[in-house]
């Protein structure tokens, strides 16, 4: 592939390089310590030790099967049923990876949006309101208000305000994904996890989604898994590069994209990998 100069370069570069955000003075809301994830006896994540800065967007990137999605889904214990998660997940000083944590209460604070838009087969209004109703918010005016603010925050209000009682399944992919974001933020989470939220969307919807995320970060801490390097570069403050179940590099996004310290990171983000 490359000439001898590259081999030299490769050996000259580091194997691993992690700069945690607190070293840059950001407050930390979520951190994993000594996190290991196993599928059966197969280890999928080896020590995912990362910290996530408040009101910042952190992107997790890496090739398929690198463990970035597994890691993300471990953060609000969506993997509980299929994987064993060991280690600590510190959410504002509390280890939420303890057996006696009420996962439902925890997931209200650590919400999640998925790769494929998955609006429920309900009206747009009910998609947002129904989780609230189940949690005892029943006053119509209150619900109306939350639906409107959530949709506004997700930059969808203007497009759907006249069709709130129509089925959410009729929305386009991009709109549906923003509805899913609205649905997630309606329960007022603290942290929002997004698992490749734009990979099923066309470029126009993707850029709208990115705009939405950039606005949302004022209120939420956002962690996003993405395949799209340009997307990570465009919207995130921090980027973690996963490979084969390990975090090989974690740093500010500009550092990762202009001057990564690990050769594999460099190869990956410049499309020179594999």
């Amino acid at each position, binding site marked *: 592939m490359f000439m001898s100069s590259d081999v030299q370069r490769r050996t000259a570069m580091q194997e691993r390089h992690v700069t945690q955000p607190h070293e840059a003075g950001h407050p930390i809301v979520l951190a994993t310590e000594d996190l290991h994830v196993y599928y059966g006896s197969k280890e999928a994540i080896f020590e995912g030790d990362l910290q996530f800065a408040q009101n910042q967007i952190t992107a997790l990137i890496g090739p398929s099967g690198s463990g970035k999605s597994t890691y993300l889904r471990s953060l609000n214990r*969506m993997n509980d049923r299929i994987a064993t998660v060991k280690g600590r997940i510190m959410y504002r000083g509390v280890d939420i990876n303890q057996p006696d944590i009420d996962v439902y209460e925890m997931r*209200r604070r650590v*919400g999640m*949006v998925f790769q494929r838009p998955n609006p*429920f*087969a*309900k009206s747009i209004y009910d998609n947002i309101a129904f989780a609230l109703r*189940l949690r005892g918010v029943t006053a119509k005016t209150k619900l109306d208000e939350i639906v409107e603010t959530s949709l506004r925050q997700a930059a969808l209000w203007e497009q759907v305000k006249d069709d709130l009682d129509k089925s959410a399944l009729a929305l386009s992919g991009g709109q549906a994904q923003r509805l899913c974001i609205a*649905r997630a933020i309606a329960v007022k989470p603290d942290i929002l996890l997004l698992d490749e939220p734009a990979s099923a969307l066309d470029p126009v919807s993707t850029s709208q989604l990115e705009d939405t995320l950039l606005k949302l970060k004022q209120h939420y801490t956002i962690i996003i898994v993405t395949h799209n390097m340009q997307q990570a570069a465009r919207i995130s403050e921090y980027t973690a590069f996963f490979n084969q179940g390990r975090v090989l590099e974690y740093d500010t996004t500009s550092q990762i994209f202009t001057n990564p310290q690990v050769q594999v990171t460099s190869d990956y983000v410049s499309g020179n990998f594999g």
Partner: protein
Amino acid sequence: MNAKRQNKVAIGTLYGIAGLVVLILLALLGYILVSGVPQLSWHFLTAPAKAFTKGGGVGIQLFNSFYLLILAMLISFPIALGSAIYLYEYAKDNWVTNTVRTAIEILSSLPSVVVGLFGFLFFVVKLNMGFSILSGAFALTFFNLPLLTRSIEDSLRTIDPQQREGGLALGLSRWETITRVILPAAVPSILTGFILSAGRVFGEAAALIYTAGQSAPALNFADWNPFNISSPLNPMRPAETLAVHIWKINSEGIMPDAKAISSGASAVLVIAILLFNLAARYLGKRLYKRLTSA
């Protein structure tokens, strides 16, 4: 061109097969309806059956059939729903689950007469419920559960797993997710399974002969107190359904018009199933619309 000729021939054959099947099916339905519909009259639909004279009707049997259907579905549907939910949503995919699943499915090909006899010995005799609609409903439940459970489980399988994750990620419990998100979305396909099993229940005879019984004492249609023996609503009374009636008059009937009554009753049965299908579909569509604003 060879491939093209082959294509034409094959497609033509398929048209032929489909046409033939439609023909067979329509001929069957036609046979039932043509021989049965002329017997139908208001009297036939409402009058009680006669044991050995002409001019009996199927009024009581028709009512019994529906009553039994409703009771059986009321009992079996929640159980089937619950266990399908457990099997698909909660149970881990291991050998225990698989064994339970296999056990349920082998029940479905057991001849219904065996189920009937079991119901007879267990409900009618052991639990002293006597020949009664309730015994029949339980027996039909036994007969119905495997298929219904299987079809509901299949319906749950058709719903995108992403919907479940969506619910969980909002901090909902699995149970809330299943009851509020998955089930409403699965209504149309659950309904298809429901209709199919209702049809089978409606047409089942062998399991009922030994449980709900094969005599239809006269009912007092003015008495709706379910504790009265002659009340149509009393679940403890013996009841002969339409299918059992057809079976009975064909095997032991000594009334002179047995043949006409049997054809008429068959036609009524087919029409009732048809109407039931249509009604269930219509209601299901409305329900789905209400639940999902589709």
